[in-house]
């Protein structure tokens, strides 16, 4: 078992579904930040069998809307002075802008430069959103 030491200040993303950690790492663009980031994969978990986990030693806060969109079941722990001070419960956002792209190949947003396309949650179970322009269902 690899041991990764506790972080002093930052964020721990726990209970990430097995195999999803790297995807999350990319979607949060953690490769672009200069803080210390650790991605752990395939950690044995009693609840989940296996899970992934990300630790970020940082002063900054993440965009929790993006996180909620990617996986609302992830546990977010905020760490200060080496202790967990806050847990954030994620939710699927009702409306999302600037994160998704419409997957309908016939949608005008894929042809014209359209800023701030809004997507509205239409099916929480499928995590599906509807494009404000063409009404097509889209997910991340």
């Amino acid at each position: 078992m690899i041991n990764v030491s506790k972080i002093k200040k930052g964020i721990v993303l726990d209970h990430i579904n097995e195999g999803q950690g790297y995807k999350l790492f990319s979607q949060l663009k953690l490769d672009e930040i200069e803080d210390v980031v650790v991605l752990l994969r395939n950690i044995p978990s009693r609840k989940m069998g296996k899970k992934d986990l990300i630790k970020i030693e940082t002063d900054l806060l993440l965009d929790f809307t993006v996180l909620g969109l990617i996986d609302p079941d992830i546990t977010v722990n905020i760490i200060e002075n080496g202790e967990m001070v806050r847990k954030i419960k994620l939710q699927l956002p009702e409306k999302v802008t600037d994160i998704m792209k419409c997957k309908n190949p016939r949608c005008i947003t894929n042809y014209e430069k359209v800023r701030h396309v809004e997507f509205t949650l239409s099916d929480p179970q499928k995590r599906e959103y509807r494009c404000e322009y063409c009404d097509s269902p889209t997910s991340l």
Partner: protein
Amino acid sequence: MNKTKHLIEPKDFTVEELDDIFRLADDIIAAPMKYLEVCKGRLLASLFYEPSTRTRFSFEAAMLRLGGQVIGFDDPSASSTSKGESLADTIMTVSCYADIAVLRHPREGTAKLASKFSPDMPIINAGDGGHQHPTQTLTDLLTIRHYKNKFTDHVIGVCGDLKFGRTIHSLVKAMSRYKNVRFIFISPEELKMPQYILDELDSASYTQTNNLEMVIDQLDILYMSRVQRERFVSEEEYLRLKDYYVLDNTKLQKAKNDMIIMHPLPRVNEISVEVDDDPRAVYFQQAKFGMFVRMALIMKLLNLEVER
């Protein structure tokens, strides 16, 4: 100050606003001479990014019959679009010249996008790909209102290409707002009504079948539609399905005497020409109602009134 109103999708108008448009259309039909100059000095921009003779003629005829004038194009290669101009720039420029614009575009969501760049000039969606075609819906509703005198208590058979037929999707949504309307969706398996449309309906309000003859005797309204070649990727698939339903006099024998047969046109083979002489066939009159309802719509969006 009135906020500029656009028509992007049928639900942009409440049932009451629609009634107002239909009452105005009735008056135009009854006394067209009264409206000859109501749009005098007004300019309609007709922006057709894909060919559609019928819809374009209908709008242009509507504006001309109101005494207004028309500018525009029906071939984007002849417009600045071919030079790479964005839709936003085109709309902002056109709004310097015209009072109202009609927009047809092959991409879905275009009319809504255009409306965001048009704070003062009303935009009418004349079809955005397979998405919405609200003035066809107004046309269909006015036709139903004219022949049936009411929107409630009808059994509506919708037959043909229910998968890609945007006029059908809009009509079903619009009619589902009225009481005691039941739908029978008649289509081959491959062209069934999409689930997302069905999800918006009360499940007790519709049934599905692939057999027109079995259900034709129940219908108050039969809405036929064309299998649209342009929506198919495979030509083979199109050829296999295009003549799945052909309405002819034999099939009509079982239909009610006061059933009406509607079709958004153009027709290919789905209604035999022998049916044209049947008094229940109203599809050519439907096209005429399309012009009248567009006249009423233009007046409504431009906030113009004539003493009735």
